[in-house]
């Protein structure tokens, strides 16, 4: 077992992490927005449902949610999910939608009512006000909390190992079982590098939106 074989083994594990990361983002960013609208809905039952959902998801460990998504379909409905990865993805999407929805809600509610009213007196529709006036201000406001949450997501993907998704730490653990401990520590480099890139990216976006203040 030389360094380069181990590196490439770990890399293939890390690709699993990245796949989980990317797909989770792709689904939970829009779903979170939808959920945030529900939690701000004028219709009380929708609002309560959304808030209860967010409370449950944020109030329980992601690890437990992984177990539930993985086991419950098989035990209760006799319809086990096709793959472990799918189970992990579903749990992550549910979990992160809840977190993102709270960030969106905070952002949307922080936009002064005067912005809405300015749009209204100019004859804009509610949709136009949201998309043309409010959205870009919300985007700017939520970039810092979003960056935080997204970087947490990168690290959280390794939790998928609890349902035996072959992500990087699980791969490294196989070496530990054979008496090699350093590959486990080496996994940190992958996370650090990737999060370093993300940090630079978010910094660039923030800089790009520097031209206006909200």
């Amino acid at each position, binding site marked *: 077992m030389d360094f380069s074989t181990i590196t490439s083994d770990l890399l293939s594990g890390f690709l699993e992490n990245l796949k989980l990361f990317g797909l989770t983002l792709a689904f939970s960013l829009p779903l979170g927005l939808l959920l945030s609208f529900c939690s701000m809905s004028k219709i009380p039952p929708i609002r309560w449902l959304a808030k209860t959902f967010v409370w449950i998801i944020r109030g329980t460990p992601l690890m437990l949610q992984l177990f539930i998504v993985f086991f419950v379909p098989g035990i209760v409905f006799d319809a086990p999910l096709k793959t472990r990865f799918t189970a992990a993805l579903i749990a992550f999407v549910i979990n992160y939608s809840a977190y993102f929805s709270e960030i969106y809600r905070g952002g949307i509610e922080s936009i002064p009512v*005067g912005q809405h009213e*300015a749009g*209204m007196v100019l004859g804009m529709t509610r949709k*136009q006000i949201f998309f043309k006036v409010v959205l870009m201000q919300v985007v700017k406001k939520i970039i810092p909390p979003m960056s935080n949450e997204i970087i947490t997501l990168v690290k959280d993907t390794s939790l998928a190992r609890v349902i035996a998704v072959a992500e990087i730490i699980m791969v490294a653990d196989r070496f530990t079982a054979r008496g090699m401990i350093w590959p486990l520590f080496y996994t940190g480099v992958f996370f650090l590098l990737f999060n370093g890139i993300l940090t630079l990216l978010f910094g660039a976006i923030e800089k790009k939106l520097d031209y206006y203040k909200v």
Partner: protein
Amino acid sequence: MTVLEVKDLRKSFGSNAVLKGVSFTLDKGEVLSIIGSSGGGKTTLLRCLNSLEFAEEGTITVNGEVMFDGADKSKHKEKDIRLKRLHFGLVFQQFNLFPQYTAKENIMLAPKLMGNESKEQIEQQTDALLERVGLSDKADYYPCMLSGGQQQRVAIARALAMKPDILCFDEPTSALDPELTGEVLKVIKGLKDSDTTMIVVTHEMGFAQNVSDKVIFMAKGVIEEMGTPEEVFEHPKSEVTKAFLANATE
């Protein structure tokens, strides 16, 4: 010609009666100043005109068309409200420009979304508006790069872009440093000269006296005094008005 007729408008927030039967009319090209002490209901009146609030009783008629009728309890449809709003424009105390757009984009946004005119028409009209408020050289500036007075002038141009029948101002200079109020008041005076019908809620007594055709003094939800600037400022009838003016001019 009567542009606006407000009849017996009543509005309360919970048990707090804020407008207790407000009636007045406004002719085309007239400038009406509304003065009065804090909490008198001036902002609420403007918000009712612009359908940001809805009164419980009374009517609002523009060019003979009923905009609002408190007796009609059917639900206000969003689309109808939107169309009715276009008869009025509102300039806010805090400007409320859209921070992510340049001065020019702020002015063009609503006409573009309305989609009644071509892009070239809107551009042309926007350039003309910028010139009218003296900001042609600031067209591509973002609000955060403009002074308060300049922002308010952009806000005025933005409201004019929708060609309202009646342009309302809610204390347009109250959020400004004293040395910046002049430039905004000058723009409003300029609009008067081009025959824009306006309602200006203001604490600038000099402006109310010199620029308006009609002055209303409002206190505790009622019109205490209404008349020409001369009538209201020189010969007020009500004791409340006298006391207010004595206070305001000291």
